[in-house]
Structure formats: structure tokens, C-alpha cells
């Protein structure tokens, strides 16, 4: 592994997106606009909006970075650049970490803008902005590692896009956004217990309702980090030096 090659890869991924302003605009602005939509959708039940708005920061970076990372690395596999890199003295971890850093940074910017909107909409967040942004970055990191991993199993962009409803939507439905996890059927609770998004969302709940770092928040963060690192390793295994 080399720090220099990892950072150069991060820089390269960001530079690619820098030449693609429309994608950047979509990544940064869509969550903000959707938050405003949701706020006015719950016009008559603002207490519900106050409850779910912070959770969105545990979900959006995960979903978007999952999608962007899976397409980006699938492209590397299909256009031959990964082929070329694998004949060079770059470690596979340099490659996956480079991506993870780049998209975590994008997640941070995305979440910063969204948290501004949350502030403007007067949503109470007990622990404040810093833990909330940290949670969002971890969600982005998690999404990126999953995207990298699943891209190995897609042979076309059509398949990669389908992985979103296949891998992410089940987590979205059971993460506690729509129904508290305790109220779901037992089988689904077990499912939710092993799904990483549940912990990303639970962390946001803790941040929204407690002004200090609760033990549960720390536990949630640790779980998210451990799962993300594990999936990152799996992702680097899917990259082969030899076919």
C-alpha cells in the first residue's frame, strides 16, 4: 500500500467528477430539494418531519454514493483502466481506499449542504451539526464500499442500477425510517439487525434526540465502520490481478 497512490486515486476520481459539473450539482442539490419537499409534505404534521429529517442524512449519502461508486468502478472494469492499473505497482487497497476517500468527501459536502437546510427548516438536532456530519460521512463511506463490492457482480450498467432496489431498498424499508424497528415482524427485525443501514439511521436518531454522545451512538458508529471496512476488504478481493 502507498499513501501517495491512494491519495492520487482520490484526486483522480474527484477530478473526473470535477469535469462533470452536472453530476456534482445533482449529488449536492437533490437531497436539499427533497428535504424541502418533505418538509412541506408534512405541513400539517411537522413533528413527523422533525423526527425523520435528521435520519435522511444517514440514508442519502449511503444511497447516492452506493450508486455512484458502483457505476464508477463498473466503468473502470469495462473500459480497461482497471486492467491497466493491475499491470502497475498499485495495491488493490490503494484503489478501493482511493475511491472510498473521494466519495466520503463528496458525502461530507452533500451532508453539509443538507444540514444547512435542516437548520433553516428549524429541525431540532440535540447533539448538533458535528456528530451529524460525522454520521453522514460514515454513511457515505459505507455506501461507497458496498457500491465497489457489488460492481464486481454487474456486467452492465443496467444490472448495476438494479442493485439499488435489490440491495438498498430492503434496508431502506427496514431501517426504522418508516416504521420503528421494534414494531416490525420478528423476522424483519432480525433482518434489520444485520443490515448496516439500520445502524447508520439509528446513529442519526441518537444524535437528533440526545445532546451528548450516548453509548449507543458510539456502538452504532463502530458497527458502521467495521462493516464498511469489512466490505472494503471484500471489494478489493473482487479485483483480480489475473483472470
Amino acid at each position, binding site marked *: 500500500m502507498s499513501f501517495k497512490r491512494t491519495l*492520487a*486515486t482520490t484526486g483522480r476520481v474527484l477530478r473526473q467528477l470535477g469535469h462533470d459539473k452536472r453530476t456534482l450539482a445533482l449529488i449536492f442539490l437533490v437531497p436539499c430539494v427533497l428535504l424541502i419537499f418533505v418538509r412541506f409534505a408534512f405541513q400539517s404534521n411537522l413533528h413527523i418531519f422533525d423526527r425523520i429529517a435528521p435520519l435522511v442524512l444517514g440514508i442519502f449519502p449511503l444511497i447516492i454514493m452506493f450508486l455512484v461508486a458502483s457505476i464508477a468502478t463498473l466503468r473502470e472494469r469495462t473500459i480497461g483502466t482497471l486492467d491497466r492499473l493491475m499491470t502497475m505497482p498499485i495495491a488493490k487497497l490503494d484503489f478501493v481506499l482511493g475511491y472510498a476517500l473521494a466519495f466520503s468527501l463528496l458525502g461530507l459536502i452533500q451532508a453539509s449542504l443538507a444540514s444547512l437546510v435542516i437548520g433553516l427548516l428549524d429541525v431540532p438536532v440535540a447533539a448538533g451539526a458535528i456528530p451529524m456530519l460525522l454520521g453522514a460521512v460514515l454513511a457515505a463511506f459505507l455506501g461507497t464500499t458496498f457500491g465497489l463490492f457489488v460492481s464486481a457482480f454487474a456486467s452492465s450498467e443496467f444490472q448495476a442500477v438494479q442493485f439499488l432496489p435489490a440491495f438498498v431498498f430492503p434496508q431502506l424499508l427496514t431501517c426504522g425510517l418508516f416504521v420503528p424497528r421494534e414494531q416490525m415482524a420478528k423476522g424483519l427485525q432480525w433482518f434489520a439487525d444485520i443490515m448496516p443501514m439500520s445502524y447508520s439511521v439509528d446513529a442519526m436518531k441518537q444524535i437528533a434526540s440526545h445532546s451528548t454522545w450516548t453509548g449507543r451512538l458510539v456502538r452504532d458508529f463502530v458497527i458502521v465502520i467495521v462493516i464498511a471496512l469489512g466490505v472494503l476488504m471484500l471489494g478489493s478481493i473482487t479485483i483480480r490481478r489475473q483472470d
Partner: protein
Amino acid sequence: MEVSVSIRSLCVELGGQNILRNITADIPAGKIVGLLGPSGAGKTTLMRVIVGRQRITSGSVSVLGGPAGSATLRGEIGYMTQVVSVYPDLTVLENMRYFATMLGVDRAEATDILGVVDLGKQAKQLVRTLSGGQKSRVSLAIALLGKPKMLVLDEPTVGVDPVLRQQLWQTFRTIADKGTSIIVSSHVMDEASRCDALLLIRDGGLLAQGTPEELCARTKTKTVEESFLKLVGKKS
């Protein structure tokens, strides 16, 4: 004769198909060696074996003194794939600099090489806006980074106009004269006469090897194309 690649009874099987069958050949060092054959003959697979990207089923391949695919060879071989393996959403120079960092090569070298492939003026242009021939020259430029001991070029002159093709072959010659071994594939037979040695491949098997003159003499023909056709005819 100094040998850069030594291939012994090489077989590669992919998805139950024999892509390469029992190839034995020695590729001389410091020369331009042409890999010729119709499309689907196995040229690309053989090149992927040499650069270490393709696992071999049986036999052995030694490259620059080590087994193909070993970690010490990474960065020693410049590889240009048939698809333009560069980032379309980066500029030419950004591509060069990124791969230079991956190879641990001085970034200043990137600018020099762009002159060699005549892309100095396009340095700040996004690759996706370049013409097909220009794109493949970016790919070639990356293969040249770090002055590799060996260049493996998979059809580098496809879609390149005659003037530039002439220039590229001159570049290959200059590079080979400095001691770099070049393996170049082509299905354009008139390029064969520019090579120092040839391997003719068909259906995954080695049909013949030797200098263009030797092949013509052996088959009593005037051009490599005729000799190839004659050899194919004899086999079938």
C-alpha cells in the same frame, strides 16, 4: 540471441474453449516482434498472458527473466490494450499524470512523452473530445511512461491515418533501437514487413515464426500476406 519472453507449451483455456494451444516460442529482446493472425486467433490472450493479466492453464511463460504475472514485473512492461484504457472524463495530461504517479515516474516525463506521440497541443483537452486515433495515442503514451523494458502493444495503429502510422512505426523503431523489446499485434499484414521477427497465429496455435524474409523464403512468396495465406492453406 537474447530472449525477452520465453514461452513453453503454453495452453490457455477459457470457458471450456482452447484459446491458446501448445505454443512454444522465444521472443528476441530489443526487437520489434509482430504478432500476426486473423481476429479471434488468440493474439490478445497471448499478450494478456505476457503482461500477466491472464492466468495460464498449462505450460510456462517467462518474461524478462521472471514468471509472467509476478509482482516484480509490474511497471516493467508498458501495456496498451485494444480498448482505449484511459479515463474519458479527464484531460490528456491528467491521465498521464495519474498513471505516472501509479508507476512512480516523474510527472515531468508525462509532458515529454506527449511530444513523442504528437499530442502536445491536446494536453489540456478532455479525452472524450478527442478523435479515435488521438485517443489510442493517449493510450500509447501511457504505455510509454517510465521507459519500460518491454512494450506490449495490442493493435496500436488501428484507426490511425497513414501519415501518423508511419510516424508511430518510426517511434517504435527508435524505442527498440534503445534496447526496449516491443511486441506488437496487428491483423494488417503490410505492417509485418516493419517487424524484425514475426509470430503467425491461427486458431490459438503457432503457425510459423521467423523474420519476414525467412517466412517469405520458406513459402516462396514475396509478401508476408501471401506466405500467411499459403501457410494457412497448407494446414487446412
